[in-house]
């Protein structure tokens, strides 16, 4: 029971007749990086807003640290840090002043030293006195992370934290989340519309579509259980087809084009197939996994 950090139970939210979230349930355990995945408009942000009491749900309830957010909001939010959609700050104030403002009402006793330390941690040292109006999107995201972590929360909720970031920024945020989990034992709820991001960072995940939960479980099991599509480029495709048909009847050849074969197979068959091709004196130029997480997602939601 103590391991359950977030418990969302049959959560529903309507905006007029629009069903934004319908009967969504999931649990985030202590130490999880929980991926919350769905296409744009799937209901991720609405669910997160309900979790943080920004929106009142029509049905269902949310418990954080074992307490209901509707009755124990104050104590719960002291232990939660969050960025919803994008971090917005007072543009006419400096980074330092912005953090002071949010720290003051975060229930922590953050000192100026803590603020400077946090700004340094997110790579904004030297920009403390600069007005946020002059910050790039990436810098605002970093400041948002600083705002989230300043009061040392146990639960961190990040809604699309890498949106609009450059590749280096995305890597930095990913590493930061992994550091928070591995070195600081934080629990993270990470919402993202990029499945690849969740695959890299999260250990458990939920897929939501059109406001409804589709699938929930461990990321490794959910994503690896799928059939792999592999593109093989060889010197003699006809010989290759013959070999596969004789020795690997379970492999389904989907397409033959020029010197390339597109096959559907279990991941564990690939090493044996490679050995067999080499033994059959077939030259292999490339073996490339064509399994796309996006395809997986589309398959899941279409089911």
């Amino acid at each position: 029971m103590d391991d359950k950090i977030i418990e969302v139970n049959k959560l529903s939210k309507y905006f007029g007749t629009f069903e934004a979230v319908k009967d969504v349930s999931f649990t985030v355990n202590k130490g999880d990086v929980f991926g919350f995945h769905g296409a744009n408009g799937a209901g991720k942000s609405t669910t997160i807003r309900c979790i943080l009491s920004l929106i009142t749900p029509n049905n269902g309830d949310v418990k954080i640290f074992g307490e209901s957010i509707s009755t124990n909001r104050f104590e719960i939010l002291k232990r939660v840090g969050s960025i919803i959609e994008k971090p917005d700050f007072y543009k006419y104030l400096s980074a330092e002043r912005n953090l002071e403002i949010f720290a003051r009402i975060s229930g922590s006793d953050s000192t100026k030293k803590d603020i400077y330390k946090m700004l340094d941690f997110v790579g904004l040292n030297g920009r403390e006195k600069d007005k946020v109006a002059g910050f790039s999107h990436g810098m605002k995201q970093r400041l948002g992370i600083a705002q989230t972590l300043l009061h040392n929360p146990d639960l961190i909720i990040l809604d699309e934290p890498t949106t609009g970031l450059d590749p280096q920024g995305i890597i930095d945020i990913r590493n930061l989340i992994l550091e928070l989990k591995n070195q600081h034992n934080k629990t993270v709820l990470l919402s993202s519309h990029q499945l690849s991001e969740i695959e890299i960072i999260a250990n458990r995940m939920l897929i939501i579509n059109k406001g409804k939960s589709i699938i929930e479980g461990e990321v490794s099991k959910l994503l690896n259980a799928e059939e792999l599509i592999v593109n093989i480029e060889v010197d003699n495709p006809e010989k290759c087809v013959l070999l596969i048909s004789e020795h690997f009847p379970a492999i389904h050849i989907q397409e033959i084009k020029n010197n390339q074969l597109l096959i559907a197979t279990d991941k564990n068959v690939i090493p044996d197939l490679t050995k067999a091709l080499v033994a059959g004196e077939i030259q292999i130029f490339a073996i490339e996994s064509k399994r796309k997480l996006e395809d997986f997602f589309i398959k899941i939601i279409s089911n």
Partner: protein
Amino acid sequence: MLLKSTYNEFIKIAAKPRSYLGLGAITILVGVILFALKADGMSFIEFVTSSFEQTLSFEGNILNGNLVAFIILQMLVIHIPLLVALVTGDLVSGEAAMGTIRMLATKPISRTSLLLSKFIAGGAYTLLIVVWLGIMAVVVGKFLFGSGDLMVLNSDGLVILQEADINWRYFGGFTVAFLAMLTVSSLSICLSCFSDNSIGPIVTTMAIIILFIIIGTLDVSIFDNVRPFLFTTHMAAWRSFFEDPLPVADIRNSIVILLIHNLVFVFISLYKFNRKDITS
């Protein structure tokens, strides 16, 4: 937490460039009036007193600081609501437009405290505007034009107030003027709770004031029952402090009605803000 949040609001108001528009506007407007009265004030006074010349003779410094301050107040009090609403109408909706309301609402502070801190900060800003108007009108007016008895023309005729009998009247007048402006501040914050953009509440506040003033001045019997309860009717209650004898009952009535308006606006705001889905 309320105090901490109020402190935050003060920081935000102090850092916003638009907060200085009101102070700058008052400085310029009063400056222009003072310059005009200094340059050609006597012809203005002669025009006003010409109708009394048959029955009264005027001696001494009629165009003194007390009269100048009264003229300034009369001319400007009706325009101050715009300067107040410019800042207070933005306090909630501006945060919604910027997205910072979302950040604030995820912190361990109740929405009631969050909103009350905005009312307190808005009230403090309104007080600053009224005090600045007082300093510019009374202090600078007396500095430039000297002191003297105050001659006031009201609906009952000409009232002449002794110099020693004036300062407390200004204090009372500015206090009631502040209460009237506080009502404007509360109204604009209240409207701000219903909007996610900054301009809407400011324009709506001014539209309501203009509408109520029109209702108040239209001599149509259908509005007779409504007129005494409109806050705009009592926005000129400061003037009652310059009547002799002092209409205490009228002043008390105005204060009560303005206070009730403030309370109603605060309660409506709290009701709305506490139930509002923050989707911005």
